[in-house]
């Protein structure tokens, strides 16, 4: 199926319910490998790459469609439809927490539970709202992305894109998990860090778990608490893990928190 190829969807595990894991800005589905493995015994686990990331079909990238998080949410809905997901659990890291919220609004029966790991509905400060970022700081990140291609090789991309049925060509790239076309990385950074989905939160009906890390500069605790307060039906758990990627640095703690919730 086109959608499954486009988003490099991998389905593993067994169980009557499905749990879909969405990676955030930065890397790809490998961010979730350790946590997803822990649910394979009793869930159908679904891993995928957002278009532009990992082994997704780069030819499907469209600057207009993906100029808002809505374009990414539309893809999640299409993946859910292709896999016939109902009452599934959506686990989203970082910006994908909001992508999951938007997808749940588009297809209300698809996800009965959302797990948001380090969510932020708006990164840039706005009046009384503290997101933690200023515009200039986001620009600094864009400069970093312009100067660092992180293993991306423009010469390799056409070979991989033109031969989706020859995965060995892509293997050199899997060496570097965060390798992303620099242009797409910059656009995704812009979409992510200039997004504002505060108005969508009160409309979310799915039962939601907010997982908050300590010392997370990307999604500070006050932002996690804001998300929790705005969602009609949510639980808030402050993890012991520090930084922005507990799915990598503390997979066991994340797994336990999700298991207790579902």
């Amino acid at each position, binding site marked *: 199926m086109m959608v499954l190829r486009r988003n490099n969807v991998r389905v593993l595990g067994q169980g009557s319910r499905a749990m879909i894991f969405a990676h955030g800005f*930065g890397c790809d589905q490998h961010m979730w490998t350790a946590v997803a493995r822990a649910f394979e015994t009793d869930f159908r686990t679904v891993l995928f790459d957002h278009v532009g990331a990992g082994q997704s079909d780069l030819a499907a990238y469209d600057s207009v469609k993906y100029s808002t998080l809505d374009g990414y949410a539309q893809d999640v809905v299409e993946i859910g439809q292709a896999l016939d997901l109902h009452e599934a659990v959506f686990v989203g890291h*970082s910006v994908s927490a909001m992508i999951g919220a938007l997808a749940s609004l588009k297809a209300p029966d698809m996800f009965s539970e959302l797990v948001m790991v380090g969510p932020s509905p708006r990164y840039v400060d706005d009046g009384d709202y503290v997101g933690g970022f200023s515009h200039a*700081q986001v620009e*600094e*990140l864009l400069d970093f992305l312009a100067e660092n291609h992180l293993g991306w090789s423009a010469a390799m991309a056409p070979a991989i894109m033109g031969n989706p049925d020859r995965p060995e060509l892509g293997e050199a790239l899997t060496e570097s998990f965060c390798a992303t076309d620099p242009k797409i990385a910059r656009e995704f950074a812009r979409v992510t860090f200039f997004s504002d989905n505060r108005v969508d939160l009160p409309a979310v009906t799915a039962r939601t778990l907010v997982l908050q890390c300590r010392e997370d500069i990307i999604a500070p605790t006050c932002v996690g608490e804001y998300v929790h307060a705005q969602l009609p039906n949510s639980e808030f758990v402050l993890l012991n893990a520090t930084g922005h990627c507990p799915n990598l640095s503390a997979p066991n703690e994340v797994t336990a928190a999700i298991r207790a919730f579902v």
Partner: protein
Amino acid sequence: VRDDDLSDLYEDAPCGYISLTSDARIDRLNGTLAGWLGQPAEVLVGQSVHALLSFGGRIAYETHLAPMLRLQGRVDEIALDLLGADGARVPVIANAREKRNGAGDHLFTRITMFRAIERRKFERSLIDARSEADAKAEAEHETSLLREQFIAVLGHDLRNPIAALDAGVRMLGGRETLSERGQFLIREMGASLSRASALIDNVLDFARGRLGDGLTLIRDAKDPLTPVLEQVVNEIRAIAPNREIVTHLLLEHPVDCDRARIAQLASNLIANAVTHGTPNQAIVVKAYIESDRFVLAVSNGGDPIPSAARAQLFQPFFRGGVRQSQQGLGLGLFIVNEIAKAHGGTLDVSSTPKETRFIFSMPIHSIPEPKSA
């Protein structure tokens, strides 16, 4: 100081060394790095690595570098700006490795850094030059698109006044009593008007092609093609009554083509023959079918086309050496060639001192579009 003094090798190395604990705090750093940062090492030890990074660098560390280190154990050649004591930036290139024990637990992360002021400045200038070039190309593309849109709109809007003029000229020529000179002028005016509309048609087709719509064909194999070709010849005879045009039209099979487009093609080729051919030799128009192909050949006498010009004949805006008053836009043959290609056909030219001949040929049955997988 001896070269085998390991402490000195670490502290005074020609690069910066720093070790981070598993929760990304500074465990130790060497004197070289402390010197670049303008802070004693003791002040920095125990602080988060974030203390050394700009905010953008911190986001990059959390979203890219930390995950890459965790997933692949290393990152190489990262361009970073470190923050010095007085807020000054220290541009560096860094390599990092994670050290783990046998059980896979993270022990510490070692990073080496090279100060790279000149190199980073050079790279920055390359990036700036590229984004400047990109912006320029983008602006030029937009301008050319606008220009082509303008041409399309202008061409379209010119059609109405020309149609009104044409109707007036026809009415004068048909119903009014005119002197001999008046009749001559009306004929000339009619000829000029049809040349003007042909030019506009070509400009519109060209603009449409450039704007990405391409030529769309309305094929119809059922209607006969011969009357269409006859009408084209008659129109040109009316414009150029002094020129002899001989026709051999022998189409015993239907041709699956867009008849309006084939008329446009024939009209362009015959009008070209009138313009470029010698007046004392007849223009010959042949249409026939040969091994399932429709062939239209238009020939005229006169000077041959120079071989240097032949290569560019089908390029847009190409104009051969003709008298100023007869110069067109140079789109005629370009459009003819586009119509030929749209029909899966070919356009060939042969030119000798005896005659110049344009030969259009296309399959009489259209080839079905390949089904997309």
